[in-house]
């Protein structure tokens, strides 16, 4: 391990908080999805750091599953963005504050 595990965790916590801030503060759907990507990457950094700390490969396997999950999530959510944009002609989340069955 080249650095203490705490420092890896600090870095991934900072990245996670940046992503969370992006999701909470931005109103553009694309930027919200980018925030989700940042958070998922921070989690991946935690897993790789833990994998290096205990010298077990399982953490890296989890990162591969995380990547598969992310690509599924991105394909669905970008299709939703296209759908919502077609419906209301905007990607501002304030336009989508009502529900209709």
């Amino acid at each position: 391990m080249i650095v203490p595990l705490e420092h890896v965790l600090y870095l991934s916590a900072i990245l996670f908080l940046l992503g969370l801030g992006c999701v909470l503060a931005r109103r553009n759907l694309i930027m919200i999805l980018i925030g989700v990507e940042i958070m998922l990457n921070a989690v991946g950094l935690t897993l790789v750091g833990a994998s290096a700390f205990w010298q077990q490969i399982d953490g890296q396997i989890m990162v591969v599953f995380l990547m598969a999950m992310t690509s599924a999530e991105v394909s669905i959510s970008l299709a939703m963005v296209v759908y919502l944009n077609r419906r209301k002609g905007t990607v501002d989340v304030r336009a989508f504050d009502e529900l209709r069955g």
Partner: protein
Amino acid sequence: MATVLFYLLGLVTVIATLLAITRRNPVHAVIYLVNSFFALALLFYLLGAPLVAAWEVIIYAGAIMVLFLFIIMMLELAPTPEADRMGPTWWQWLPVLLLALALVGCTLMLIGVDAGVAQGVPRWYATPRDFGFALFGKYALAVEVVSFQLLFAAVGAFYVGKPERKRRQKKEEGA
């Protein structure tokens, strides 16, 4: 050496991410995010995960971010005021150039870091062989589940992305 590189790359990642989430133009945000993912891939390599580092570049920076760019350009979400038609101004391209140069510098420094030994102790890293055995041996069932998940995602994306009129027509035909 590797320790210094870790903090340097951590700094590059945080700066690139910070710049990415504050951009008004989504295309600029995606470019900064690609920078951040490259730095993160080098971090993964330093932490003994060369295969994950390669996939970070191929899947995240290569595939997912290009999908984002594709959607942004398809929906014409990036604002193009008159000033932008002349090309980006220096304060738009200088930060990303500096970050990219820092990444190139880090990559060159990484060549100097001997892969096998750090401070007299052999540095642990996952070989592709270990990785394949773990992935397709211990986690074989999970791989199957993930393949189902990807299939469902593809079907779902296809359904959601279909034009509204066609979908309604189908529903009426069904009823």
